[in-house]
């Protein structure tokens, strides 16, 4: 991956402890975290996410709804909360998301991090947002105990659907990804088509509890093509056609069935491809990370399938607290790099909206 252009220091491997300040502003959430890492011992001291904190009540004014401008207001507030009066004294290093994401949003977090690095003289490391999601699984102590390379990660969120092979810390290769819509987007847009409110994932999951998942035959694109790419955009069309074929009177009664069938179609594809990829790459554990990994049907089905089809392979889902965008996961991935001696020169850092992990 592109992260090692300027190695400025080489510390002894995993001996020292790191208190890492994590900063994440790649999309909608502004997040700040302080993480302590010493070897395999990890403690999340602070984990602040803007949408969970009434910032305008504490700091006055109105938080703009626009991503980038909101990040500016929120980031200052969260840094103040996380660092307190000791400021950077109790932080050893800074980890910040530098891509992929929205340029204007990424820039807010990166510029703040660069300033902190410049004035404090502490090392800074840029983290790929996807690597952060991978590291979210490692925040779970039970997962760390079973953490044996190589690993496979299924990253599923509103903006991402990727299968990533992990050879070692910080060594990744892409196995497969969506060619069009992300899994989370498939949930959200299908929900919208059947008249369910936003965010669609939890709404579909709730409605599906009372539905028959085999009621409607929805497509499972590329399920048996032997490759590991995904396609979810055709599902929208199928859901729409199914919904529109129902009479207005039928719709209320059949919505749960359609929700259950939609969820089943998405989960089927994700689980089947992940199991096949894990089998072929002979990994020792499978990570399930990203916002969609909160979906209970996906968690259960993938966990069961690993148990049934993959002998001796651990199932390593993120803790629910860390599935959506947060900065603890960014700090954790940053700690991996810091323990290897990776760091960036703050003077030369820039955002990369299309940053690759490979």
């Amino acid at each position: 991956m592109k992260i090692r252009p300027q190695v400025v220091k080489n510390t002894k491997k995993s001996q020292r402890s790191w208190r890492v300040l994590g900063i994440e502003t790649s999309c909608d959430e502004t997040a700040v975290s302080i993480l302590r890492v010493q070897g395999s011992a990890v403690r999340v001291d602070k984990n602040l996410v803007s949408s969970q904190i009434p910032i305008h009540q504490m700091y006055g004014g109105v938080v703009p709804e626009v991503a980038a401008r909101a990040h500016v207001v929120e980031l200052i507030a969260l840094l103040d909360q996380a660092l307190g009066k000791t400021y950077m004294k109790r932080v050893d290093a800074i980890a910040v998301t530098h891509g992929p994401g929205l340029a204007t949003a990424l820039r807010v977090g990166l510029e703040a991090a660069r300033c902190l690095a410049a004035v404090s003289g502490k090392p800074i490391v840029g983290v790929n947002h996807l690597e952060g999601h991978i590291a979210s699984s490692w925040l779970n102590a039970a997962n760390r105990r079973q953490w044996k390379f190589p690993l496979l990660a299924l990253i599923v969120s509103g903006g991402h659907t990727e299968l990533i092979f992990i050879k070692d810390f910080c060594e990744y290769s892409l196995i497969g990804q969506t060619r069009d819509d992300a899994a989370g987007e498939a949930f959200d847009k299908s929900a919208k088509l059947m008249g369910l409110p936003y965010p669609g994932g939890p709404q579909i999951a709730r409605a599906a509890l009372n539905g028959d998942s085999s009621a409607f035959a929805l497509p499972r694109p590329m399920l048996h093509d032997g490759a590991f790419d995904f396609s979810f955009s055709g599902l929208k069309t199928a859901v729409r056609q199914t919904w529109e074929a129902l009479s207005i009177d039928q719709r209320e009664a059949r919505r749960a069935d359609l929700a259950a069938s939609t969820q089943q179609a998405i989960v089927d594809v994700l689980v089947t491809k992940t199991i096949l990829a894990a089998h072929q790459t002979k990994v020792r554990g499978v990570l399930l990370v990203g916002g969609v990994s909160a979906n209970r049907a996906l968690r259960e089905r993938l966990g069961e399938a690993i148990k049934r089809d993959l002998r001796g392979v651990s199932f390593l889902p993120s803790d629910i607290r860390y599935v959506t965008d947060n900065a603890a996961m960014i700090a954790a991935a940053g700690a991996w790099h810091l323990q290897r001696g990776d760091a960036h020169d703050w003077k030369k850092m820039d955002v990369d909206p299309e940053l690759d992990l490979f």
Partner: protein
Amino acid sequence: MNSFLIKNIDEWNVFAAQLVTRLQPSMIVTLSGSLGVGKTTLVQAVARALGVKVNPRSPTFSLMRTYRTSDGSSIKRVLHVDAYRLEKSSDVLALDMDEELSEPGTVLFIEWPENLQVWMKKQTGPRLQITISIREDGAREVTMS
């Protein structure tokens, strides 16, 4: 106004090849049509026609994606914006679209332009409006003006 009927991915490619000949730097191409009608599919076909090496994916969550072309034409860069999640036109400021569009050789495709009406009204450059609808038999009707 031109109207086209599209039945499969090959016909999207044929349509995209025609569309590409009408593109010019700084042009805004608006893509209107409901969920699942094929707006991103069209951008994928356009990217192929322009020699973009990656496959455009839905920008709904990232809001904006950028692609470099490699066909040697006057179009160097494709911006793909999805305003589906933008509820207020003021949100567009966050995307820095004015600055992005001013980069030479850039053409901008916008899905859900209806959510960006205030910004759209201020734009004076060349524009193409594409509307896609879906027929009962699943074929897509595309109009361009």
